């Protein structure tokens, strides 16, 4: 018992201390210039901003894994779907696109959804047997033919509308912050559909299903040009913050920058990044607050019970399926929000970039290193791992230069130095293994 209390006392300080260390890393990155750090606030803040987005993503994954034990390996898919929101909600409408095929497209999509809904009704309400199978097949085939009949011409029409520049359906021109919410909703809707189908699967089997769904979502984003130009990318997505150039042309800001003794470009860069940082921080803290409130209450207890033993939780009256679906949707929504935020930050939607290594596994690393089941841990892991991932680009080659320094010049040494870029992976691997070694349950363990 006494050991318990000691552990509790230790963990009370653990979180602030770790966050303080993290803050120091970023301050060093912003101020000190040597082989390890760049000494640029712009760099430091840029890393931090993406780190905050990663932290939110990690938070979403943590909800699914840490609270409920759902093994979602399709993170990249939900993240990408969230990224679709700024494109569809906030970019300017594309002239002629809607007239070309908008309504037809909506009807086609409605047909598809309707067919599926009808099919599931049929499945539930018809008695078992051959007839049911037959009816279902006929319905699905008819629905598919009808859908393709409506869908294909609509796609052709939209995509042939100025394909070099547009060829997509365009956005609604709404404020970009709204699209963050929409990103969450997109991802949540997909999660609902996926969850309905796949949540019956356990652990690694769920993993492969979600992995597949992630790949499918990415494939759709890449190949359905009418949606967001596919691999041809959408650029110039609106921003919620001023452009650096605008600031540089603003005399007041210039004066302000001068009073700090900073060059215009540096100051404007920092300013913009600080604006983003504030926005991201607000979102992150709000989400953590909500998550903590939920987790530290009977809801969270119920989730842990379900994670520990589904059969028993079910026998104790908890609707495991519904809860799984709920938390899967919530977590995905959070991932979607993060996805929308990243696209806003990048100002670019490039589906080719969505690769699972970066947007699924790296996020998983963040969650586990941070400490799964713990919101602060996940956030910490998110920022920290992102920092290391970026710094590994510099540290890797430094490391190998250091290691090979004593070697005499030879082709072996130059070969090693040439491969220095790959030290990025080695450095990342080492960091991961070291953290896991010294904090096997994560930096901030669940309890």
């Amino acid at each position, binding site marked *: 018992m006494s050991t318990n209390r000691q552990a509790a006392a230790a963990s009370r300080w653990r979180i602030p201390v770790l966050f303080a260390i993290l803050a120091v890393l970023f301050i060093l990155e912003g101020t000190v210039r040597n082989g390890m750090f760049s000494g*640029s606030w712009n*760099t430091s803040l840029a890393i931090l901003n993406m780190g905050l987005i990663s932290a939110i993503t990690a938070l979403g994954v943590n909800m699914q894994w840490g609270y409920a034990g759902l093994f979602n390996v399709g993170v990249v898919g939900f993240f990408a779907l969230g990224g679709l929101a700024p494109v569809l909600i906030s970019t300017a409408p594309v002239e002629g696109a809607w007239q070309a095929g908008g309504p037809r497209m909506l009807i086609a999509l409605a047909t598809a959804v309707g067919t599926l809904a009808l099919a599931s009704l049929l499945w539930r309400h018809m008695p078992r047997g051959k007839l049911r199978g037959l009816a279902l097949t006929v319905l699905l085939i008819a629905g598919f033919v009808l859908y393709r009949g409506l869908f294909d011409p609509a796609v052709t029409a939209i995509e042939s509308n100025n394909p070099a520049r547009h060829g997509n359906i365009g956005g609604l021109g709404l404020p970009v912050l709204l699209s963050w919410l929409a990103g969450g909703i997109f991802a949540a809707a997909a999660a609902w559909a996926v969850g309905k189908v796949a949540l019956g699967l356990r652990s690694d089997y769920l993993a492969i299903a979600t992995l597949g769904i992630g790949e499918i979502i990415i494939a759709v984003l890449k190949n359905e040009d009418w949606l967001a130009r596919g691999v041809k990318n959408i*650029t110039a997505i609106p921003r919620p913050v001023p452009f650096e150039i605008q600031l540089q042309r603003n005399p007041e800001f210039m004066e302000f920058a001068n009073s700090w003794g900073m060059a215009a470009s540096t100051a404007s860069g920092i300013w913009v990044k600080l604006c983003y940082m504030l926005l991201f921080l607000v979102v992150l803290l709000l989400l953590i607050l909500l998550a903590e409130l939920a987790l530290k209450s009977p809801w969270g207890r119920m989730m842990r019970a379900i994670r520990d033993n589904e059969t028993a939780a079910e026998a104790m009256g908890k609707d495991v399926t519904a809860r799984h679906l709920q938390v899967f949707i919530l977590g995905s929504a959070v991932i979607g929000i993060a996805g929308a935020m990243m696209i806003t930050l990048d100002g670019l939607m490039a589906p080719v970039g969505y*690769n699972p290594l970066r947007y699924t596994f790296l996020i998983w690393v963040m969650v586990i290193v941070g400490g799964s089941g713990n919101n602060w841990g996940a956030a910490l892991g998110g920022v920290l791992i992102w920092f290391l991932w970026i710094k590994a680009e510099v540290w890797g*080659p430094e490391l190998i230069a250091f290691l090979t320094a004593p070697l005499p010049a030879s082709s072996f040494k130059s070969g090693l130095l040439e491969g220095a870029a790959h030290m990025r992976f080695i450095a990342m691997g080492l960091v991961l293994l070291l953290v896991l070694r010294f904090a096997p349950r994560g930096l901030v363990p669940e309890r």
Partner: protein
Amino acid sequence: EEIKLGTSLGFTGPLESMAPDMQKGAELAVKEISDSGKFLDGSTVSLVQGDSTCADAAAATATVERLITAEGVKGIIGGMCSGEAIASLENVAVPNGIVMISPSATSPALSTIEDNGLFFRTSPSDARQGEVMADIIMEKGIENVAVTYTNNDYGKGLAESFEAAFTEKGGTITTNSAHEDGKADYSAEVAALSAAGGDALVVAGYVDQGGSGVVRAALDTGAFDTFVFPDGMVGQALVDNFGEEIEGSFGQNPAAEGEGRDIYVKMAEEAGYDGTGAFSAESYDAAALILLGMAAAGSSDPAEYKEKIMDIANEPGEKILPGELGKALDILSEGGDIDYVGATSVEFVEPGESAGIYREVSFTGGEMEVVGYR
């Protein structure tokens, strides 16, 4: 003064095998200028390497951010792939007012991007290559082709511009379908292409990626034996990989007539790397242009030298080949004019990209032969 330039190339990621030779190209130009001692009152130049990963826009942006704000580079050679190049240009280079010259980002989207005159590229937009390729194929009397492209903005953009040009000229495209890079197996793609048929297969992909995989599977199954290779495919690797198997195939890549390229390849050989590697020569030119621009402006401030780049790239002036950068510096310091030709016969059109002179190659007897320029 010590001036720094940065490279932002995909040293890790799907094009990791292409990046090193590009880096070497840039290094060669930097070294040549730096060692000449004639640059901006004896300033030295150094090159800072950055990893753009080719695929991950966020990582590329972070890299360029570091190069600019932390390393303080005055110009960037990169990005490598169009998507990532656009992201880092819009998010970092333009806000910070730094010049970026990409050796290899060829997406048509970059022609119209808002860049404040900061972005240039030593490769042409793919919009042009489509036309050239269509001409070449038509002239061979082939009217029926299947197209497979790597599923990114480069591949798709090229495939679309080619399709438009080719059908315009009366040809037929039996299928125009994508392949993903880095997949384990391309049998399905080849099966589909073969079923669609066609007298030749246009492979708008990367030679050390899915492009080769598709060619391999197509050869093995006998689906096609004539291939058309655009820039992502043309390279020594193609000859090494397939040798006589692709007898009778042909292709084109941006590279201009003249000794420039041969000189560069020789220089590269002396420096111990392969100068024929895709976009390696373009990287040399990109670095040279930035530095010569600085020399012409007499300043390393991007806001000033960005204005000079079009001037030095085009006529009038004395033609400058690779290895003659010292001479160029001399001319510039005397206030003369130069017309940088470089390794790829640089000729810039508005808004600051290579006009697009292509070299037509064919594969006979296990060798790649240059048959003409257009």
